């Protein structure tokens, strides 16, 4: 049982629940306390000791059910082969001799595996598969491409070689028995394949997910396939959550060295002004002020989804965010983003200004006319867009004024550097007024860019 629980810990790690050695010790102690006879209590116990959040509890619960349902399919599988064999037996009576399934002890000279299969001892077979799976260290399986090699390893460990020899011999001496053995072997192969598949589901999940996420993080946003969009959204939300955790709670920072006389005197009034306790001046930090201007025109339609999602999460991290969206003219979208869920907000913004042909010039004019007052010397302005203005007047002079009024101007462009300045791209002209211009085509670049912006205020 101890062995089993340890394997369950591995499976739990596969399911994305981080189980440290200390936690596994605690869990073992708890399990020793409650025993293993009542599955519901065991499940509750493991959930209590191993999982550290609601998500982990769900994942671990699923994992538990999968893990401890394992013995059943193993038993069913040999059952399947016992189903097969009676049919064989039904056919063979005519041939007489080796009939009666399981009857007539298998010839002595056969190998142990062949004897086991012929006597159809289900439990022994299941145990042998489990043992061989342990010997082949099935819990190390990571990728689906490894299924073949693990199956053959398990079969080898069970003594497939000897079985083959026996089979060759029997084909000559006792064809009927050989036929039965062959059928049993097929069933065994199937059982092993199922075991391996289950092992993969149990132990390899985390690795596969990490790999997939890694690929997704580095995939260009504009080239993401439709089926991946949902996963991408989840990933961006993860990024947003990370940002929020890192930056939403201002860390207390004291600068020792400057005595706050007023507070020190007051705090020590109780003992006659003798300064037992000292109070220090705190360093004043700028509160983040961000103005985000997001292009939602047709040319960046696929990327703007993710941009808006990120701005939405920015609203949650930073108190003072004003956001604007434009294609041919510009509107403020702060309220929409703040009051609605990401999906609703995006749909509403897209229906209001989305998918038009972009006109950076007139959008900047809109901004200067109505919203210039949102800029303060502490503001960071983020522009998300490809700077393709359909050969209309780019009005870079307005961008210059925006840059002069704000602390920084960051331009995030989904296009590669190579494309800047070609066709109708006005990037080089705008770039002169920007503090930073970054290419921002993948989720990873997006995260870095935003993290840098928020970090400057810490």
């Amino acid at each position, binding site marked *: 049982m101890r062995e089993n629980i340890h394997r369950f810990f591995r499976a739990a790690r596969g399911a994305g629940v981080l189980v*440290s050695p*200390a*936690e596994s010790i*605690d869990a073992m*102690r*708890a399990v020793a*306390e*409650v*025993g*293993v*006879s*009542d599955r*519901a*209590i065991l499940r*509750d*116990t493991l*959930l*209590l*000791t191993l*999982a*550290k*959040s*609601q998500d982990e*509890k769900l994942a671990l619960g699923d994992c538990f059910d999968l893990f401890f349902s394992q013995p059943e399919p193993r038993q069913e599988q040999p059952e399947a082969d016992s189903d097969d064999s009676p049919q064989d037996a039904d056919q063979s009576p005519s041939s007489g001799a080796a009939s009666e399934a399981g009857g007539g002890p298998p010839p002595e000279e056969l190998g142990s595996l062949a004897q086991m299969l012929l006597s159809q001892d289900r439990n022994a077979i299941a145990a042998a598969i489990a043992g061989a799976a342990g010997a082949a260290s099935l819990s190390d399986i990571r990728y689906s491409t490894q299924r073949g090699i693990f199956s053959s390893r398990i079969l080898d460990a069970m003594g497939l070689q000897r079985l083959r020899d026996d089979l060759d011999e029997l084909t000559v001496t006792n064809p009927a028995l050989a036929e039965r053995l062959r059928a049993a072997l097929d069933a065994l192969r199937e059982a092993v394949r199922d075991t391996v598949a289950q092992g993969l589901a149990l132990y390899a999940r985390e690795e596969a997910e990490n790999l997939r996420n890694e690929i997704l993080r580095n995939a260009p946003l504009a080239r993401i396939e439709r089926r991946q969009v949902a996963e991408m959204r989840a990933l961006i939300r993860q990024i947003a959550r990370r940002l929020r*955790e890192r930056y939403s*709670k201002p*860390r*207390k920072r004291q600068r020792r060295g400057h005595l706050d006389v007023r507070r020190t005197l007051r705090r020590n009034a*109780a*003992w006659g002004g003798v300064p*037992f306790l000292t109070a220090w001046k705190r360093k004043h930090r700028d509160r983040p002020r961000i103005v985000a201007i997001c292009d939602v025109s047709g040319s960046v339609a696929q990327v703007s989804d993710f941009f808006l999602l990120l701005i939405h999460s920015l609203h949650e991290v930073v108190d003072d965010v004003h956001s604007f969206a434009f294609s041919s003219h510009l509107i403020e979208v702060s309220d929409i983003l703040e009051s609605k869920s990401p999906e609703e907000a995006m749909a509403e913004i897209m229906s209001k200004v989305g998918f038009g042909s972009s006109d950076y010039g007139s959008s900047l004019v809109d901004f200067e006319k109505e919203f210039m007052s949102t800029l303060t010397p502490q503001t960071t302005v983020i522009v998300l867009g490809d700077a393709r203005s359909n050969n209309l007047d780019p009005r870079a002079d307005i961008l210059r004024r925006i840059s002069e009024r704000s602390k920084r101007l960051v331009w995030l462009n989904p296009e590669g550097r190579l494309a800047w300045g070609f066709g109708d791209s006005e990037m080089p002209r705008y770039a002169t007024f920007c503090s930073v211009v970054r290419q921002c085509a993948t989720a990873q670049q997006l995260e870095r860019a935003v993290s840098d912006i928020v970090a400057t205020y810490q």
Partner: protein
Amino acid sequence: MADQKPSIAIEAVESGLAAQGYIASRQIATAVYLSQQIEKPILVEGPAGVGKTELAKAIAAWRGMKMIRLQCYEGLDEAKALYEWKYAKQLLYTQILKDKLGEVLGGAQTLHDALNQLHDFGDVFFSKEFVEPRPLLQALEQPGGCVLLIDEIDKSDAEFESLLLEILSDFQVTIPELGTISAITPPTVILTSNSERDLGDALKRRCLHLHIGFPEQRLEERIVESRVPNISQTLRRQMVGFIHEIRSLDLKKLPSVSETIDWARVLVLLQASELDTEIVKDTLNVLLKYEADIEAASPQITTFIAKSARSNVFG
């Protein structure tokens, strides 16, 4: 035998808590049992008003122990949570003992001698008499053990969490001047959190993690039954059914168990025999705490009442 015992013991926990008016699910009872057996704190998470704090009170009442409560807030530090030196008393004593000190030190010829004599007194002014124990230290000093409730740990700073680690894993605190103080009887520690911020892994690792969500309909009916005994069975079913419908809405703050109980009391006070649109409209502000939520729920009232009445017939 060892296999048989736990399930009985867990049931004993369940009925013990029930006797205090706390209807616990199986999972809660298992957590309480385990925390006792392997001496680990329980970290309880869940939405506001599902009975996290109440659990600690029920355990204390059931075991007949004292409950010591530490309410966390931003800026809570060790002086308020752990211990503090009684500065005023120290100062006062030095003043009073001034003459005595002069007498004792009078024999010393040189400054060096006087200093040596002073050293011989030991740390008179930093002894246990001058320590003001705060909740955490108090909890360790209870001879008969106690239930220590650290409420809303997520409201405190990250630094405070680290301060708790020593207490949570070894049930001891270290005061530099006095040394390490261990618990006489390890207290039962309950931490609650509303998940306002993610707690550190180090803290989570030291605790059993228990998540209390909204209870199932049956369980909630039992809770109402134990808390508001004089409500009729039909009304109880109806109102719990109604609340479960409300929880399916997308609201800013979903009504939780405490609101259910409040509402049951209100309905009894108003002597309602069954739910109707009129009375629900009048008392909806007991359940929902935001104007926007009330507006969102109002149009659905009639449907929900009908639904809960229907489930009543079949249930």
